[in-house]
């Protein structure tokens, strides 16, 4: 028979265990599976039901234009031009995809489709690599060392991030010309050497939370500051580096505006396909769509391989300071 619990006669342990049992029963009553995140009861069911319908409609409308574009990329050009927006291709023209590799190019520079892919690759690797690594250096040094000017550098980095200076693009363009880096692949490297900005804050916060005892242990074994950083501290930031690398790679692969502005002679897939559509009078639209579909593949593959990493590891704190 179960012992009765009384506030006056029971021991604190008995009271605590009884309270825990009470909480467990309440939880069980509230959520059948005991998981607050997935279980919805009463009015919640309606709220989540309505939200689900809205989400489903939104997802459907996002997928629809892409599905239509992919379907149209298999149409023969005359069939596409004749209309029949909802009809499936009478003959599925898989050749449109091989044709895309052969005939799509950047008409402004004459860069072939393969050339566009090549430019996309080096631009993506350089941009994503530098944007994810360089701020880790500044973030680490400023968070882990106290030296004259450290607080000033941090304050300036915050101010630069929060004060909007409009129209400096013109002065920036003038500078690239003066440095002979306009329309020069080296611009990507020089531009990537900036160690401040939003990414710096994330690394700053991360390294601040990493215990210095790792470094002290390594220093006892004779490690210098470079070894401590590259072999002890930086490997701990690999999840953040990878996240920035992946998101940076996706962004760089899809970038078109800065390519058109700063490196017109080195068009990437995104900017080259935009130039093709804008400057070709009688563009073969299904072949153009096939080119667009091809350009989507690398980022979709990268995302499908790393989706859990992208979806879980980015966070930002405050900008106070």
């Amino acid at each position: 028979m179960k012992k009765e619990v009384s506030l006056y006669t029971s021991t604190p342990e008995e009271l605590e265990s009884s309270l825990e049992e009470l909480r467990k029963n309440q939880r069980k009553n509230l959520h059948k599976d005991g998981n607050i995140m997935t279980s919805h009861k009463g009015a919640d069911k309606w709220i989540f039901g309505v939200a689900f319908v809205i989400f489903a409609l939104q997802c459907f409308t996002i997928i629809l234009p892409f599905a239509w574009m992919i379907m149209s990329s298999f149409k023969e050009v005359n069939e596409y031009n004749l209309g029949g927006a909802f009809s499936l291709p009478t003959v599925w023209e898989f050749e449109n995809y091989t044709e895309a590799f052969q005939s799509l190019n950047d008409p402004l520079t004459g860069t072939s489709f393969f050339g566009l892919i090549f430019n996309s690759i080096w631009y993506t690797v350089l941009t994503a690599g530098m944007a994810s690594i360089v701020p880790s250096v500044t973030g680490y040094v400023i968070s882990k060392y106290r030296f004259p000017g450290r607080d000033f550098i941090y304050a300036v980095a915050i101010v630069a991030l929060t004060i909007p200076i409009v129209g400096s693009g013109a002065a920036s363009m003038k500078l690239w010309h003066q440095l002979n880096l306009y329309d020069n692949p080296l611009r990507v490297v020089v531009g990537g050497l900036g160690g401040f900005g939003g990414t710096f804050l994330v690394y700053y916060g991360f390294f601040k939370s990493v215990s210095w005892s790792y470094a002290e242990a390594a220093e006892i074994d004779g490690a210098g500051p470079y070894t401590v950083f590259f072999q002890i501290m930086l490997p701990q930031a690999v999840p953040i580096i990878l996240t920035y690398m992946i998101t940076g790679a996706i962004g760089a692969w899809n970038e078109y505006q800065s390519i058109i502005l700063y490196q017109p002679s080195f068009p990437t897939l995104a900017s080259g396909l935009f130039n093709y559509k804008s400057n070709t009078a009688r563009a073969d639209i299904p072949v153009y769509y096939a080119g667009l579909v091809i350009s989507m593949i690398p980022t979709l593959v990268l995302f499908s391989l790393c989706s859990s990493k992208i979806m879980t590891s980015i966070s930002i704190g405050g900008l106070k300071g």
Partner: protein
Amino acid sequence: METQNPSIASESVTAPAVRKKKAKSYGGKPLRTMDKVFIVTMLFIPIVHFLIFWVYVNFNSIMMAFQLPTGEWSWATMESVFLNFSEGMENSSLLISIQNTLIYFFKDLLMMPFQVLVAYFLFRKIIGHKAIQVILYMPALISGVVITSAFSSFINPSGPIGTLLTAMGMEAPEFLANSDYATGTILFYTIWLGWSGNMLLLGGAMARIPVEILESARLDGITTPKEIVYMVFPLIWNTLSTLIILQMTGIFGAGGPVLLFTQGRYKTSTIGWWIFEKINYTGASAYNEVSAAGLVLTCVGVPIILTVRKLIEKIPSVDY
């Protein structure tokens, strides 16, 4: 009588003085020469980069606002900007750009609570949340060139939407080639794809909320709307306030993919497009005009942004 440990007493007297004078590593030790070399070598390039590409560029941008393209000092550049303002909304490309930019900015601001809701339902694992998350994130994965091509073809008079409208006996307008519809269409496009904006950051902030807090509130009978307003909003305020500040900072950068849709025609220009168009198509002769317009907008924007930032910082964030 209480005796004082002499070693502690002497430390308490001397330590603050030492702390002020000597630079230290995080562990509290004074910096060695090799540490100093490390700091200098690691920070040298980023600091020089910052001085050139932020300090010099912005300083030069201010200077250029008071110069002619020839480099001669003159008020003429600034006057031409004010002349552009005085041309009125019908003729001033700059005023149209500012108006459109502010519309996009307020739309972005108004969408933030909805983005929090999206993140909340995904955080609460709504049915199919994984698939929904991936599909909503898709626009961030795919180039704007692809998405805008698919969208503009889809709403074209010969595309599915146009065909549907014609079948219903309605006129199928050129949504992106008509001043009455173009800005509204681009605005719709940004709203359509903007639900998932900041999804990862907001989702990350919610994921850090201790489940026990939500659970105990549930045991006390809190409803979903109250949970969102009284629990989730305050607990993610640190992230949300940062996003609002960043949004404010980008006030004059707000806009849609004008280059891809209309290239600024049909009164769709935004400040971002106006600057791009001047730099890319007009070239060096327009650099000074861009700098002058930028300076005027910066002078208007900075006080507003700093005030909003101060107000936001007054709202206390919750530490947990």
